[in-house]
């Protein structure tokens, strides 16, 4: 049983198909800046905290509909925080120093990739 794994999405050979070589252009195209970081998580967590305070205030001062909307907002932000945390944990570039280095220096010797 072989496993499908790749850091970057590269179409690799099945025994009968031709080989696909990653080109430098492809590497550059794959270098993206939008990697989730713990800073993003902290930013959302602060919003959650604030939203909870706002919800408590709104429920005291306003009607049931606005109260529900405020708590719904808390739920939305809590879900976003949880998803961001999972994204950071799953993104090898955010967690692995070698991956971070290779993301910035794909031509470095340590980052060579061999495909059979």
């Amino acid at each position, binding site marked *: 049983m072989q496993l*499908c*794994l790749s850091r970057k999405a590269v179409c690799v050979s099945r025994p009968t198909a031709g080989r696909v070589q990653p080109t430098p252009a492809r590497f550059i195209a794959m270098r993206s800046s939008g990697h989730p970081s713990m800073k993003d998580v902290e930013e959302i967590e602060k919003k959650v905290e604030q939203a909870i305070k706002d919800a408590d205030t709104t429920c005291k001062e306003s*009607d049931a509909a606005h109260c529900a909307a*405020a708590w719904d907002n808390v739920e939305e932000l*809590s879900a976003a925080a949880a998803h961001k945390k999972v994204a950071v944990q799953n993104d090898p570039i955010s967690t692995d120093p070698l991956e971070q280095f290779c993301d910035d220096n794909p031509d470095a010797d*340590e980052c060579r990739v061999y495909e059979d």
Partner: protein
Amino acid sequence: MQTLNANRVRATPAGLQARSRARVCRVQAAKDGKTVVIGLAADSGCGKSTFMRRMTSIFGGSAKPPAGGNPDSNTLISDMTTVICLDDYHCLDRKGRAEKGVTALAPEAQNFDLMYEQVKAMKEGKAADKPIYNHVTGALDAPEKIESPNILVIEGLHPFYDERVRDLLDFKVYLDISDEIKFAWKIQRDMAERGHSLDSIKKSIEARKPDFDAYIDPQKKHADMIIQVLPTQLVLPTQLVPDDEGKILRVRLIQKEGKKLFDPVYLFDEGSTISWIPCGRKLTCSFPGIKFYYGPDTWYGEDVSVLEMDGQFDKLEELIYVESHLSNTSAKFYGEITQQMLKNSSFPGSNNGTGLLQTIIGLKVREVYERITEKEVVPVS
């Protein structure tokens, strides 16, 4: 549960070593022919993302946001599948909803016309410039262009709410999480957060319940397959260690009968009622063990078959043993379910019915796709 240490070989510190990458077998499907549209409905915090990842894993590749686009995009794209989050069709952003006193669960906050127009366009092979709802800022960001994929998955709160959108869907799944389990999961998710307390979690659930019951829950009658997650019946609530609450689960897969696009999975004898405890002489399980149930039932007036698992997998051999006794799973080779579960063993629910039954639904989605397109999907290994 044995985890396959699925990852790459690291360069050793000594000298220059090339990192080798294991062989990847994948079908790069050309987008020609029909787009199959799948709908997934569930409340927030109910495991939609995990389910999405299991489903897309059957088709190979890993689902990622569009490269070079908005980092807060909710869209996920892999070789054959594109997953769209229906929150992108909110017509009221966070500020707008707060002003009007409307939750995201209410139909007034959704632009169903645009949802219908764009899902229809993608089903017909055209690209769509889809808005982005930014969950961090709560605002609607500039649209992103989404190409028509082989398999389009629309997930969110209202995939079956609007009749026009519902009629575009080839296969519909609903995740029905019981109140106690929802509460337990939200505690696990949020209790470590600054600001949250048991009280705030409870208030949030209670405040959203009226709209959830009015607008989201009624959609479940339209689904082709429903996953219900309930507290276990193997252990009394008083016997449960707090850590296990929400973890030992009774999970039911409700499958509509008489559908042309898929055959329901069954145990031993289709249409009969079976109660099965696999643990015994051939298989030893640790506490609380595993119990299966299979039988016919009705769901909102329609005939269904129910396959239910209560308990936890503790060892790999339990999983393969169970798989070998299920029929009509749509697996393409012996052990495919086990292999998928192992591949995704880091996902929540990998040791219980949620992982097993969601994986089976993923295989059914593949079956639906193959029946509609009359093409074969080579299994990912």
